[in-house]
Each structure stands twice: as C-alpha cells, then as structure tokens.
C-alpha cells in the first residue's frame, strides 16, 4: 500500500501515535497572551489534528522559569499554574480529532534577548555571549541551577495536569541544557563542567527531576542536535555519546534530532533549510543517533512530501518524520494522502517566510497559505461551495493574487475566467524562480496550475485583458490582480527610457527573465534589499559577470530573512560579488561604449563613480492601475470595504442587488507588497463570493 510506512502507528512511551508524521516544535509567536495559549493557538493546532497529523509538539522554546527570555517570541509560559486550564482547551481540541499533543519546554539560558518585558538577566554556564542575538549573560550560580531543575519538573507537571500527552526537553539550538553540554560554552571547573559526566549533569538532573515528577505514564522526550558544525562544538560522535548516555537511563521516551547548531547566522540557516538545500540534508545525523539509542527518533528538516517521508521511513533511518513547514503550508496533508488527493497537497516550497517572520518576532505565517494560523478568524483551508447565486467571475492577472482569487472563486462553485498576459501563470514568482537555488519558489505556481485545472477554471494565457474583452464576458465580479512594472522612472537622472535602445538602466526583472543579456561588468543598485536584488546579483555572477551590488540601506539583502540571507551570502561571497552599503545611485550616463554610475554616500554626500557595461536597478514595483481606473466608474461597488476585509467578513456589496459588476483589486496593482499579502487579500475577499 502506498504510503504504508507513514500510516504505521507507533508507541512512544505508553502513548500510541496514529501515524509517523509529526509537526515538530516551533515558536508560533502568535501563540500567547501573556504566556497563556490563545484561541488562535488552539485552532492552529486543532486544524493540524483535524487534518490527520499524528503528533503535534507545540510551543518551541516554551519557558519553565521566569528568567528564561520569553517575550520576543511570545513563548508559552509554563512557570505558573495559570497555564493549566489553557492547556486543557488545547489538549481537548487536538484529542477530539485523534491527534496527540506535547509541548517543548526549556530554559534558554543565554539565548534570545534581554532587552524587553521583564528585562531578564540571561544565564549561561560560563557567561559567554551568544553571537546570533548579540546578547550578554551572567554565569549561572549553583542555586540557580537547582532552581531551574525544579522549574523543569514543575513545568512538566503543569503540562501533564493540563492534559497534554508529553513534554520535549529542548537540548538543542544552544538552550541551557546543551549550553552545559558544549565545551565551547561551558568552561566550568566545578561538578557542572569539565568531564563528560559533569557536562551531562545538568541535563541528567533535569531528566531525573521531570521523570520523578510525572511518572511513567507521561511522555518525556529530548530534542538534541546531530552535530553543531562548529570546530570547537559538539561533533556527531559527541552527540552519539550523549544520546546513548541519556538513552541508557530508560527515562527518555523519544529523541528529536536536529542537524546543526544555530548560535551563528550561518549555522542557523541549516536548522530550517530553505529551498537552496537538498531534501532531508541532515537525515544521516538523525540516523546516526538512531543507531545508538533504543527510544524512537524523530527527525525534521526539509521533509516536505509524502513520497519522501515514506522513503525515509521505509529505509528505517528514523522512526517518525517531522513535516512542520509542510503542515504550515497544508495542515490537511495527511488527510489528502488518505483521500488519494496527493496532487492537491499544497507543498512547502522552502521560502521560509514562516520562520523568517518568527526571527523578527512576528507571527508565523505561510507565504502561500493565508488560512494558516488564521483559522480563528474563520479563514478556511477548505473552501465550501457557495449556496448563493452562481456568478461569472473574471480575474485579470495570473500572479499569486490572481491565481488564489481564481482558485477560491472556483471552489465556491462560480464560473471563473482568468486572463494572463504572459504565456504562463506565475507572475513575479516566475521571475523569482530564475535565480540560482530559487527555482523551488515556482512550486507555488505549480500547485495553483494543478488546482485551477482541477477546478476547470477557464485560463486565457497570453491574453492581455482589455476593458471590452472583459465586459464581453458579462461578469458579475471582476478581480484585478494585474501587478505592476519595475519602478525605474522615479529619478530621471537614472536615464531610464521605455525604449530599450536608449535606456541606461535595466530592471532585475529584465535580467532574471532573460529579456536582456547579462553584462560582463555589472553594477546593481538595490533600493529594496529584498530577494530580487540579491537574486539578480547571484544570477549575473552565475553567468560569469563581475558584480557589485550597492544599496543605500544597511546592507544588501537586509530585508531577506534570517534563514535565507546566509544562503545568499554563501553564494555571493563564493562568486566574489562585492556588497556595498550606504551608497545611493545618483546618476547614470553613457561614456564611450560603457556606462558610468555615479554613487553618493548617504552620510557624507561624497560621490564616487563606477565604470561598468550594465546598470541594474531594483526600485520596487509601480502598480499597473490603468484597467482599474477604466472600470472603476462602471462598477457597482466602491472598491474594497476595509472593515469587512480586516474582519475577514463578506464584502457587503456581495449581498446587494443591482445591475452591473462588482470590482475588486488586490496585490501589487493596489500597492506593491508581497506574495503573502496578495494571496491573503485574494482569500479574504473571494471566500464569500
């Protein structure tokens, strides 16, 4: 039977998990109100359980002590009994759908930030600063060690009393337990440092205290690293020794294994591998741990599709697979496998929008699924068919917003036509996918292509919709998602012209789409610092160009998230791309066969010049508004009703009688935002059509 390996139940401790798929612990950020789980939190996990996920481990870095930094990621607070009734709601919600739920508990020690909320003094075995959060800490005292051990036990008790199925002790990501383990952080010479047994002592005392508190009929697992990837850090062999040491106590019900440490920007990127990584890049590390332990092993990291998951499980590398981002993209992944609808699974593309928001202290959202973590607002993962009138819906634009609008309208049972000027769907996603190591972003488009075909949407590709063609269809609703064009005309000094022969600058779109050939010596000016600038730099360097990328912002790629800029930097540095900040593109002029770019320092006003053969400018998008203004006066409604939109309620005009069509516009043709914004607007506008 296909996917049979996924659907083998497994015993973890005394708990039966219905299948082998786990949503592993991550900080939800939207999770809590003062450390207490919210309705939003409960609904987020309930959806996964409803969708068939076997085990959810919630609450990445949920704190056991009041001095573990909590505020930045809005972690769940297990340092107080107030959490117990909140857990009961959470447990009931998941259990009623046959799922199981545990929570990760930890003391983060020196990790995260101290400058907020209770302004905690961070703690670490030897007071050594953590690079990734720029945080300093004190050296932990003996009394504090014993207090925190007790806090772990109390936190576990609260989880148990709240009806959760277990706790996962975090000894990964350089939290306090593995800070004690790691000789590069633990320089102590007392009983808590030095020898292997001494470095293991804190974790062991935590494990003993927790097990003593909760007894045998409650799952206690440990999440550990497979290899810190630091020359002076814990190696894979060290980790095997550690895992075997704890496993031998018989007190650990499972091990979760994460490849790579994460206390530098570069190692952090390994932990949640983005689309530049191969599938399951660190599986071998988890398999190595499985070799030496008797407890079941869970491994996540770039396991995104059911075939891959089956292959890993069939190979016996690990006992359970973490498909965490896969569930953020599609919480109904398991149900769709069971329904024989594998093609309908919205597969994670590794854009890491979710985790990159988390590292900015923002709620975890999915780039391509606007319903995720908005279940509490009534945004649906499964669009119900409308019971109202069948409408003729015309969508203009086949980018993410337009595709989502067409999908949602078609799921509602309407007759949908989609116009796209290009020969293929995708819009800016198609351009973004041209960059090296960014091809998987096109997975967003691929899913929509399959869905729109399944839903029999009338696709008019290669067809630019004009007013007449559109009104010919006698639409009831027109959705404009026409996007925009690169905004190169903002400063006349740049020498942009619509005539490509005359224009002194080209856009990143021109470069990535292959519309203009790569130059040999290229200056990229990037005013936006999102993906497009660094993607163009990587693309041009890949084609053999000498590239300098200049920005007037903090640094090139400054707006690319924490798990993705490192992979760009690895590539750009390797290709000797020069990255320069604080310079504004002042002027471009032609000199002989070449071009001269005049750059002006933001802070001193001094100018410098570059002689190049191609100047690429990334200055964002200018909305394409022509069609909107041509149709606006004829439409029945007056644009989007914001109150309804923000409340995710039906647009009031949908229930009003009248002649003519309703007009909505969304995505970049309103104002340039991002993929998620376009898809979110499309979903919340169209879900009530």
């Amino acid at each position, binding site marked *: *039977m*296909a*996917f*049979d390996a996924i*659907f*083998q*139940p497994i015993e973890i401790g005394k708990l*039966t*998990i*219905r*299948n082998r798929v786990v949503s592993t612990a991550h900080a939800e950020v939207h999770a809590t109100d003062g450390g207490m789980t919210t309705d939003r939190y409960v609904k987020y996990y309930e959806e996964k359980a*409803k*969708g*068939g996920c076997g085990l959810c481990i919630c609450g990445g870095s949920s704190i056991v002590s009041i001095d573990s930094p909590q505020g930045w990621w809005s972690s769940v607070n297990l340092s107080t009994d107030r959490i117990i009734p909140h857990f009961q709601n959470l447990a009931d919600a998941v*259990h*009623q*759908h*046959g*799922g199981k739920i545990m929570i990760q508990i930890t003391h983060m020690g020196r990790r995260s930030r101290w400058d907020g909320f209770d302004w905690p003094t961070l703690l670490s075995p030897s007071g050594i600063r953590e690079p990734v959060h720029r945080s300093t800490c004190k050296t932990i005292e003996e009394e504090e060690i014993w207090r925190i051990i007790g806090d772990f036990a109390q936190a576990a008790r609260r989880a148990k009393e709240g009806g959760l199925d277990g706790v996962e002790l975090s000894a990964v990501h350089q939290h306090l337990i593995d800070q004690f383990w790691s000789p590069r952080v633990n320089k102590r010479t007392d009983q808590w440092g030095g020898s292997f047994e001494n470095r293991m002592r804190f974790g062991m005392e935590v494990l003993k205290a927790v097990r003593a508190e909760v007894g045998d009929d409650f799952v206690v697992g440990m999440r550990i690293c497979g290899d810190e990837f630091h020359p002076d850090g814990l190696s894979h062999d060290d980790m095997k020794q550690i895992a075997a040491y704890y496993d031998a106590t018989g007190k650990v019900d499972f091990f979760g294994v994460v490849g790579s440490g994460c206390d530098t920007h570069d190692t952090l990127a390994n932990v949640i591998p983005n689309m530049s990584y191969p599938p399951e890049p660190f599986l071998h590390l988890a398999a190595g741990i499985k070799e030496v332990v008797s407890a079941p092993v869970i491994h996540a990291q770039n396991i995104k599709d059911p075939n891959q998951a089956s292959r890993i499980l069939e190979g016996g590398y690990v006992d359970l697979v973490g498909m965490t981002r896969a569930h953020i993209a599609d919480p*109904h992944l*398991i*149900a*769709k*496998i*069971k*329904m*024989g*609808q594998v093609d*309908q699974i919205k597969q994670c593309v590794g854009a890491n929008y979710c985790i990159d928001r988390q590292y900015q202290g923002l709620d975890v959202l999915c780039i391509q699924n606007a319903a995720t973590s908005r279940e509490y607002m009534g945004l649906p*993962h*499964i669009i119900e068919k409308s*019971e109202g009138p069948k409408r003729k819906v015309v969508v203009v634009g086949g980018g993410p917003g337009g595709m989502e609008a067409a999908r949602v309208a078609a799921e509602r049972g309407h007759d949908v036509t989609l116009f796209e000027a290009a020969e293929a769907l995708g819009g800016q996603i198609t351009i973004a996918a041209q960059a090296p190591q960014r091809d998987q972003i096109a997975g967003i488009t691929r899913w929509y292509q399959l869905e729109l075909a399944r839903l029999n949407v009338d696709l008019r590709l290669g067809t630019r919709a004009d007013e007449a063609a559109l009104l010919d269809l006698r639409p009831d609703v027109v959705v404009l998602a026409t996007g925009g064009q690169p905004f190169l005309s903002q400063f006349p000094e740049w020498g942009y012209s619509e005539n490509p022969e005359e224009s002194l600058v080209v856009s990143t779109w021109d470069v990535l789409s292959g519309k203009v050939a790569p130059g040999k010596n290229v200056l990229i000016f990037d005013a936006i610092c999102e993906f497009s600038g660094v993607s163009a730099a990587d693309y041009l360097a890949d084609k053999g160009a000498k590239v300098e990328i200049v920005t007037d912002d903090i640094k090139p790629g400054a707006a690319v998230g924490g798990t993705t800029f490192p992979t760009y930097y690895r590539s750009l540095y390797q290709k000797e791309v020069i990255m320069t900040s604080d310079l504004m593109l002042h002027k471009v002029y032609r000199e002989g066969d070449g071009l001269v770019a005049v750059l002006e320092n933001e802070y001193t006003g001094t100018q410098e010049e570059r002689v190049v053969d191609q100047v690429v400018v990334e200055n964002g998008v200018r909305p394409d508004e022509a069609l909107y203004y041509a149709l606006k006066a004829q439409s029945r409604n007056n644009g989007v009703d914001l109150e309804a939109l923000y409340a995710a309620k039906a647009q009031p005009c949908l229930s009003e009688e009248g002649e003519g069509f309703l007009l909505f516009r969304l995505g970049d043709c309103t104002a340039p935002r991002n993929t998620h914004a376009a898809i979110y607007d499309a979903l919340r506008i169209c879900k009530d059509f």
Partner: protein
Amino acid sequence: MLEILLPILIFSALAVAVIGAVRRIRLWRQGRPSKVAILRGLVAMPRRYLVDLHHVVARDKAMSNTHVATAGGFVAAAVLMILVHGFGLGSSEGLGGIQGWLLLAASACMFVGSLFVARRRRNPPARLSRGPWMRLPKSLMAFSLSVFLITLPTVGVLPEGFLQGTGSWILALVLAAVLVWGLGEMVFGMTWGGPMKHAFAGALHLAFHRRAERFGGGRSTGLKALDLEDPEARLGVETPSDFTWNQLLGFDACVQCGRCEAVCPAFAAGQPLNPKKLIQDMVVGLAGGSDAAYAGSPHPSQGLGGKPVGEHRGTPHGPIVAREGKALVDADTLWSCTTCRACVEECPMMIEHVDAIVDMRRFLTLEHGNTPGKGAEVLDNLIATDNPGGFDPGSRLHWAADLDLPLMADVKQTEVLLWLGDGAFDMRNQRTLRALVKVLRAAEVEFAVLGNEERDSGDVARRLGDEATFQSLAKRNIATLAQYRFQRIVTCDPHSFHVLGNEYGELGGPGTPARYEVRHHSTFIAELYDAGRLAFAPWKGGSVTYHDPCYLGRYNGEFDAPRNVLKALGIEVKEMERSGFRSRCCGGGGGAPITDIPGERRIPDMRMNDVEETGAELVAVGCPQCTAMLEGVVDATAEVRDIAELVADALVERPTAPKSTGVQQPAVEEVTP
C-alpha cells in the same frame, strides 16, 4: 388408412424417444453421485415449472405468453394425440367427442404460439442460438398443423371418408409426412438432442435441482463445500464426469436463449467468456465430440471475431481444460467470471453457472496450481498472512489507532461485532470504516472489533478455487467467533457478509444452526434510522444513483435497505437502467481483478457509463470492492462514495437524544477535502 398409420407413427416415435431418454439419462449418470430426493423432486416439479421457472420467463412478457401458448399447447396436444390418435379414443362414442375438440383447441393454440416463435426467429437478437433452433418454429407449426388437420375428420368437421380414396391417399401421406416431421422434432428430438431436449432435460433438472431451496422464492447462493478429507474425491472438476449427475442434467437443460450472455459483464467486456457457450461446451463434453455444431455467439476473445468455434472438443472422461493446447474450454474462460450471478439470476432454466465455474477453478487451483495473473500470489499471501494483500497481519487496526475501538478480546461480549474485512488494509476503505464507526457511535451502538484476531473471510480464496485455504480461514474465524458473545455481526463488506452469513454455516459442524446473524451496514443503518437513533441534515449535494453490489443484491436479496437509507438522507435515487437484481457487476468479484483476463474494455468503465447515463454526480455504493473498481475509472463523471460516508457526513445530533450513560467516546474526525 390413417387410423392404422397414426398409432404406428405415434408409438414408434414414443418408443424411439424412450430409447433416447434412456441413453440421455445414462449420459447424465456419468456424473458423480449427488443426494437428491427423487420422488419429492418429481412431485414438486410441476409447481417448480409452472411457478418458479415461469416467474423468470415472465420478465419478458411477450416471450412468456408465446411459451405458454406453444408449450402448453404442445403438452396438451401431445397427451390428447396419444389418446385420440394413438389409442383411437377419438370417435364420438369414446369420451363423448370432447377430447377431439380439445385436441383441436390445443393444437390451434400451439400453432398460434409457434407463429410468434416464428416471428421471433425472423430477426433474432444476437443472444439467441441459430442452427437447429431456426427450424424449430417450422417444426412446431408442422406438428400443430398436422395434428390439427388429422383431427378435423375425427371430430366430424370433415367427413369420415375425407381422407379415403386415391386423391386423399396422397393428401394423407403428405399429412403423415408433415406429422412425422413434427413428431421427429417434438418427440424423437426431445431425447435425442434436438432443440426440444430442453423440455425433457429441463423438467428433470427442475425436479432434481442441486439447490432445491431456490424454489418457492428462496435464495441459495452460497458455494457448496468440497470434502477435502475424502481421499477418493478429486479436488474440483477436471472432466465433465467429475460434475455431479444433476449438474450435468442442468447443463443439458439449457435452452440457448442467451439471457445469460446478454447480462454477462465479462462477455460485454470482450473477455473470453460467454456463459451460454460455456454451458453448451459442457453439453458437448458430456456427450463427447466437438463444439462445431454450436450456433450461438462464440466466446469473445481479445481482438476481433471471438474464439473460433469447432476447434474445441472433449469427452465425458477427458479433461475440460488442457494443460497444453486446447480441450473443451480454455482456462481464461473460467477465470474471466466475476461470479456476479447475473447469468444465474437471469437463466429461465435456473442453471447454476457459477457453481460449475468454481468447481472447475477448484481443480485448476488445487490440483494444477494454475491460478493465473496475481492469483497465485494472492493465495500465497492468504496462506502466509491471512489477508490477500500480504500485509502484516498485526496491522489490521492501524487505520483505527486513534479511534480507541473496543476489542472483543477485552470486552468478551457486545451487541454488535463490527467485522472489518480486508478493506481495513486499504486506505480508501478505511474512510468507509471510519465513517461507519462514527455512525455507530452517533447511534450509541455497543460494538467491538476482533482486531488482529480477524482473518480474511475466505471469499477470494474460495472463488479462486482454493477451497483448502478458504476452509482453513473459515474454520479459524469460526473458532474465534465462538469465543465471544454478540447479537449480530455488522460489516460494510458484502463479500464478508455473504461468506459469514451463507457459507460458514456448512462448516460449523453438522446440524449446528448459525449462532449469529450477519447484517450489511446499510441494513443496520436503516434499522438504526427507523429506530430513531440517527438524525440527518438535509441533503445538499447533487443527484445520486445507487449501484447494487452483486454480493449484497443478487446474492442476498438486499435491494431496499440501501435505498431506504439514501431516502432517509433526503436523496432521490436516479436509478440506472440496470439496477436491483439486474445490476451490472463492477468487475471486482470472483477474484477477476486478480486473475485479470484481458478483454476489449473494462467492466468498471461500462458501469461508470451506466452511471453517467443517469446524469448523477455521485454514485452511492456499499462495497469496498465496488468502490475500488468504480473509483479506478479514469475521467469518471461521478464521485464514488460509500453509504456509510454519506450517512456520517449528514449526521446531526438527535433532537431528543437520550443522555449517554457510559464514557463519551471522542468523535474522531478528519477533514475530507
């Protein structure tokens, strides 16, 4: 002159017929013994003929009237003819002359009937055999007309001396010749292998039928067990004489009407099976010879034209299926059958095609080990793992890991034993099972499952001819069931339902009555609804048709409960042309998907075309096998859902639900996108 000639003709015809009958009976008696209540059968025969057989024939009103007139006329005319013209009791002094008039009336009636037979033969449908059958209407007319004419002087309509004198001599001779033709066909032919053989063999077949329970409206569909302990008995049927004598008699009763051919899904799919031809092949075999005289449509074969007629031959004691080359029947003919029983249900002679096919399969599987396609693998799986898919027998409950189902081993007794079937290993059927669990819990039914103690019911093994594996599975299941107390078994699998309900009884030890009753889930759900234990939200979906699973409908007569459940859901079923007892098989029974004999098209495709013709957007089913077959159809216009799923989706809380006592089970729900 005729007074002398007629008795001679009549009695010599009868004498020759008796010799023919003796020879024919000896052919049948080549078969193995079979316990038959001879006298009781003969006494019951007229009623079986006039009521049970006529009930089947009457599905075609015109043909039924034609047959009543012709056959009724003939029987009356033949008896009266013997009295009037054979014994000379025709003169007015004898019985007051009435018998002559009656004979006139009978022969006239028969003549009218034969006109309709003739009309039918003018453009006969493909299913009817030609050959000697084409002359039958003329023979009927010859008999009836000549009898009528020779009787006219007897009753005095024509003067007594009409047929005397020289001119009349010639007329009398012509009449006598026509009568000889008529007598030849109707009396001599009846026992010497002419078309009229059906009347003689048919009457005796009805008297000595191997499933006497079928008469009087009964249903007898369970396969009969093979005695595996008898060292003398061959395992299954290798040669025609390995059939029991009354089976051979049954084959000989075939009237070649081709109703079986018209309803056979394998035939329609162009697979090499034509049930009529198969029965005729058996007739060839019991008498010895080749099939060259067969005049109906042949066994289809992949490609064009069908298997050529005349190349197969056999003898009563020679093999039916050759190990190499050709004998009477090719193996792929036997393996094309889906055991859907459409032929049996349709046969006016109540011939048991499926029994015969399984008997022959038994030999091929048990003695030769020649089960084609995936058959051998499936049987190996059943032997090794107790399930046809070869799944880990300990994983039968994996689909329910989160449902906390009570196990019989723990509870020991319960109201309902939920029999899972091998669909428990199939992801599609697991959805049906989960839906059924949800329904049972909503109705607060006390139930439990055997879990890993359950084994395959043995259905597939038995129909693939592996009686040994069937009996091994069945006996172990029976032993397991015997450990527990429950009121009834409920299952969503009609195959398990049939085997547990109709075939286990014979194995439970002699004379032991069934300890339990078995219900198909649609029947049980209908009962729960009628008892007010379920309430449904109004149906909001599109139009729906219903596909009758063979093993629920034809095998067990349950046509109403599924329709009642759909009605309770607020669904008005758009019936397919072939529904109810005439439902077309999905192609999934009898191990047919396992042996996978190629044809020109697929049976489930044809069935989904039937669905499409109704315009339904959804076809409701009640069988895991049907679901799998119909869902496997590419580009189907309708969705396939089990009745349990439709019910589970429509569940709403009962307005006056009594407070549940016991522990409330969580209603485990998954999204169905």
